[in-house]
């Protein structure tokens, strides 16, 4: 369990806790990093905050891209369904034509026999 309270700067602490890249680290490395961050001088903390804010923006941008992609996929899904339905309908229409043709032949034969 990582102790984030060693980072006194609250803003930095929140950024660290929400950093996807930091959270992706192994526990041992995360612990080492927390120790280093806690002991960073003011200037270093500011640099790190800038970096983590940029990272957060990047992931936010990624989420926007995801949402756009989702919207596009939703449209694509309708097209996919339409493609399948259209094609199946085409098959049914052709099958129906065959069936009608066969029925007509048989019916004509019957009428001829009557």
């Amino acid at each position, binding site marked *: 369990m990582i102790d984030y309270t060693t980072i006194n700067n609250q803003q930095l602490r929140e950024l660290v806790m929400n950093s996807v890249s930091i959270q992706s680290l*192994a526990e041992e490395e995360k612990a080492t990093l927390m120790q280093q961050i806690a002991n960073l001088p003011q200037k*270093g903390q500011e640099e790190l905050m800038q970096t983590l804010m940029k990272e957060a923006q990047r992931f936010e941008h990624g989420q926007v891209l*995801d949402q756009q992609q989702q919207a596009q996929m939703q449209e694509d899904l309708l097209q996919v369904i339409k493609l399948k339905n259209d*094609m199946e309908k*085409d098959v049914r229409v052709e099958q129906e034509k065959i069936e009608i043709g066969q029925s007509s032949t048989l019916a004509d034969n*019957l009428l001829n026999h009557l």
Partner: protein
Amino acid sequence: MKTFLQSKFNLGVLAKRLVYASAPAPSEGSERASVTPKTAIDFDEDTYERKYNETKRVLGDIQNGKKIEAGTQQMRDLLKSKAQMAIEKLDALKDPQSIRAEREDYRKKSITEGLAAIRKIMQEYYSGAPVKADKAAELVASADDQPYAPETFEINANAPIGHAIGRVFDKLKTLSYVKVDELTYLIKKQISNISEIDFSKIPAGTSWDIASDQISPNKGLSFKVTFNGDKNFGVDLVEATKEVRNANPAIAQYLDNQKEKVAKVENT
């Protein structure tokens, strides 16, 4: 009997024909309009992937002539041609797997770049980047189940080698090197590698005075420490810490810098 059954069958067909005759003939335009999904569909990626794969399979079956066995050749060719066009349209849409792969690539790239930026800052302030996660995990796994806790690491001060190493550690702790825990951890790992040393085989009277310039308690051992005891920053673990150096180039750089400082002090 046969005629009766035949007649019955034919009457059925006749009835069917009458039904068809009264129904409007299928027209392509009206059929197409009716199959466009008009209602909102609960969307999720799995649905998209399932529908995409299902459609691809259906179109493939039609294109391969699996759906239409009867009918004229012209009819079958027409359907195959339509299926081919539909497949091309489907291929123009994004494959769900590639969408997922793109997203994962973006995430991995963001994490890699994020960590690189963080490490750069740490390197700037601590003259040493953190040990790579995979390397640290590997070292932890091979360290005889001893948890990473340098501050509680106990050295048997009664054993000559333990005494020597203890002195090295004491000295290391006085250095203004912030990443001393990491360094001691790696050295500890090295010590764990020599835990099978039979101390009784060390010749009696071997000097373990680490203040001397060259300590070589390595008779029968594959372990060597050199330590410039009189210089506070003069730690030279070149031989003993080859693994440390390989594990972290920043540590190697640090040790080299210390050597240079020692050399400068000695020259002046």
